[in-house]
């Protein structure tokens, strides 16, 4: 007992101290614990619960909720293949099989010697350089058969990750079109100085004059949000940067944080100045763990140059600092109230709204939650003024939008366009010659068919948080929708009935159709469930979960129809499959041991 306790203390005490034994930092404490121990053993749960004065169930609930926390050993090397539809199109399925057979494993299994486990995970944001995988939360990009074989050898020889070839972990920016944000130079502190010259009210007026709308997807006017937060009663105010970029096909925030982080931090500081906050929090998705140290070094440099900390730029009483909080694998935390729950050290279940975060956010205080791109662009408005910004883009959608383009095109990567750009223009620029469909806004977005390519990217037409996946005319849109549906099932938080059960039911129906057992009946069921999820789900995840199916059913019906049986109904119960245990007992798998498929 004392031995366990002393070793437990040896590992956990420095971590606890680093986070001041603050239960709000539970996620960070668990992450660091797992980085030390490869998983979070029961003794660590007990120790942490006691040290943080939490119920052990709360610690357990957090571990259970997030995909990247493990309460049992998952190997010294934990390999997760990104399984977005773009990874599939780049051949990740064959590469996964190759690795499994080379290491003699099945998916999800931990090797007998406890060395390695291999599984899949939701989109890791490397769609422009996939197929990709994560090993112990660090991304390996541009996978090929050769690279897979090399990884297998490195694992077998138990080579530490730091000794793996650095090119494995190289992440490109792939910026192909720059507009005002990506091409305007900024000296650190320049935008902030402008904002301070304007004063909080003046800066707010510029934001409102720009008619700038949030880039996270919902498109709420940022100036109005800041003003509401500034005017809300409360003791403390917070600025949160939502860098939980989990929408499949989106990777613009990855590039902004990798190469334009100063703008993001400066935008947060300006927001803090305007609303009167002294603390900013960045919620960084677990898949971007590899950026953490670099970002922290940047924050440290900003503190040294008085761009963060006390009396920023000599302004008496203007105190602001930024803290980075890592997520742990939960798409739903992109929803702002789930994100706040997660920041508070809890499972990321969306709150009941109203009240909204601008009045009751982080720790119950007025909070502004903005997307990474939104905050970066606030610096442009500080630099050049609201009137200038308003002149860009369209009347209802001012300014520019970063698009993360992937799929069937010659130059996947980041493209910055003024709002109002047509899909045809985008497809031409990225070299997509035989596009049959584009999925705009990720899995929860809109699927456009060829006849809609004249439409424009704008809040008033095709709204998007930034993903644009291109599908060539050889692609199967049914499989695209099925991939997205499985994504939503995996990411549903389980709080409300329609989403928790409905996403599974819809997956079952799609799988039944994929297995050649679908009929017109399943098609009706899919529509009926989509209508329920859309209207009765608690948050945006459930409300949009059926959208990819709904869109592809409308626009790519033949991809469903060719799989359907010409019958009204086919039972869900599969008699032949249910005889599998009997076949196994009899050690038979010949034709006579199977029922005909058309019974």
């Amino acid at each position: 007992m004392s031995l366990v306790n002393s070793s437990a203390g040896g590992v956990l005490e420095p971590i606890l101290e680093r986070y001041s034994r603050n239960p709000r930092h539970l996620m960070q404490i668990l992450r660091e614990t797992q980085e030390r121990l490869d998983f979070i053993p029961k003794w660590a749960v007990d120790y942490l619960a006691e040290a943080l004065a939490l119920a052990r169930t709360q610690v357990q609930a957090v571990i259970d909720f997030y995909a990247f926390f493990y309460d049992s050993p998952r190997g010294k090397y934990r390999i997760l293949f990104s399984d977005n539809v773009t990874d599939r199109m780049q051949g990740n399925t064959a590469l996964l099989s190759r690795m499994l057979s080379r290491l003699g494993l099945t998916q999800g299994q931990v090797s007998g010697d406890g060395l390695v486990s291999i599984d899949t995970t939701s989109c890791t944001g490397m769609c422009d350089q996939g197929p990709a995988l994560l090993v112990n939360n660090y991304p390996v990009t541009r996978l090929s058969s050769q690279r897979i074989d090399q990884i297998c050898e490195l694992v077998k020889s138990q080579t530490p990750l730091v000794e793996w070839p650095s090119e494995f972990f190289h992440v490109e920016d792939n910026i192909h079109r720059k507009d005002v944000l990506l091409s305007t130079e900024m000296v650190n502190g320049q935008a902030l100085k402008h904002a301070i010259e304007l004063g909080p009210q003046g800066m707010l007026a510029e934001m409102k004059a720009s008619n700038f709308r949030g880039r996270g997807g919902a498109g709420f006017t940022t100036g109005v949000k800041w003003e509401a937060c500034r005017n809300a009663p409360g003791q403390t105010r917070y600025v949160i940067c939502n860098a939980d970029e989990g929408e499949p096909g989106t990777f613009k925030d990855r590039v902004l944080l990798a190469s334009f982080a100063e703008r993001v931090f400066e935008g947060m500081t300006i927001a803090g100045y305007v609303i009167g906050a002294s603390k900013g929090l960045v919620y960084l998705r677990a898949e971007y763990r590899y950026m953490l140290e670099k970002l922290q070094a940047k924050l440290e440099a900003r503190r040294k140059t008085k761009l963060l900390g006390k009396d920023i730029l000599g302004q008496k009483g203007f105190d602001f600092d930024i803290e980075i909080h890592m997520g742990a694998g939960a798409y739903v935390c992109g929803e702002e109230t789930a994100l706040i729950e997660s920041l508070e050290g809890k499972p990321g279940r969306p709150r009941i709204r109203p009240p909204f975060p601008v009045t009751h956010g982080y720790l119950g205080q007025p909070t502004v939650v903005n997307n990474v791109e939104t905050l970066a662009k606030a610096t442009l408005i500080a630099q050049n003024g609201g009137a200038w910004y308003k002149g860009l883009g369209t009347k209802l959608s001012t300014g520019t939008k970063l698009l993360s383009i992937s799929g069937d095109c010659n130059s996947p990567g980041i493209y910055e366009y003024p709002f109002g750009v047509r899909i045809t223009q985008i497809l031409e620029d990225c070299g997509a010659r035989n596009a049959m469909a584009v999925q705009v806004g990720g899995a929860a977005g809109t699927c456009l068919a060829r006849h809609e390519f004249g439409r424009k990217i704008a809040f008033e037409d095709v709204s998007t948080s930034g993903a644009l996946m291109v599908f060539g005319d050889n692609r199967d849109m049914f499989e695209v929708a099925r991939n997205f549906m499985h994504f939503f099932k995996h990411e549903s938080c389980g709080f409300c009935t329609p989403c928790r059960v409905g996403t599974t039911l819809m997956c079952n129906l799609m799988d039944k159709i994929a297995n050649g057992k679908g009929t017109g009946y399943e098609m009706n069921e899919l529509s009926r469930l989509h209508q329920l999820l859309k209207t009765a789900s608690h948050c945006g995840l459930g409300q949009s979960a059926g959208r990819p199916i709904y869109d592809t059913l409308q626009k790519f019906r033949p991809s469903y129809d060719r799989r359907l049986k010409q019958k009204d109904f086919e039972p869900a119960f599969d008699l032949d499959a249910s005889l599998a245990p009997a076949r196994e007992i009899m050690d038979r798998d010949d034709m006579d041991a199977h029922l005909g498929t058309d019974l």
Partner: protein
Amino acid sequence: MNLEDTFIIDGTPIPFEPSQTVLQAALKAGVFIPHLCFYPGLRPNGSCKLCTVIINGRHTSACTALARSGIEVENNTPELNDKRRLMLQMLFVEGNHFCPGCEKSGNCQLQALAYELEMMTPHFSHFFPSRKIDASHPEAFLDMNRCIACGLCVQASCEVDKKNIFALSGRGMASHIVINTPSGKLGDSSFALSDKAANVCPVGAILPKRHGFALPIGQRLYDTLPISSQTEFLTTRKA
């Protein structure tokens, strides 16, 4: 009746008091809105979604929407009841609910709603999940097969009993109740049958031991009167 203090449900004016929700005001006025995860005196949870209504054209949960004067609420409509039936079917296939052999039959809110909304079949194929029974406590069973993850026991134990025995863990379909003891067993907790948490479960997930069918099925709470006719009980019940 002062029109300032009323709102409309399906054409009927409903009086309300400040800070009342649409569900509370409706039940008080004798208008039934189906619900599972709401219990008088506890904070609305908003998770079961059975109380989904349409307020001024927008779908919302009646248990979390504040009553405001003049709002128009659609409640007892074929469209909404069809959706509620669908959600009941989801709850039935997600867990293992065997009404004929369940001690809660007749007192079960899930079953009562299924009768109320004329749910004739579970419609979907059953998931038949493998869930555990915890019989470690001397006075009570915890049968996870029937749990609908409404969270009422969690809240009652934490906020009323001040024992914090239950918590909701897991994600998605793997969401489940866990017990705050080192063993994870209810028997090692300070749980007692007199706890609020022991008496708020809308289904038969928490049941007392050695009390089997004292009142015959057929004479129980929802056997005698449909749940929609018991709005007074639903607002005044105290565990």
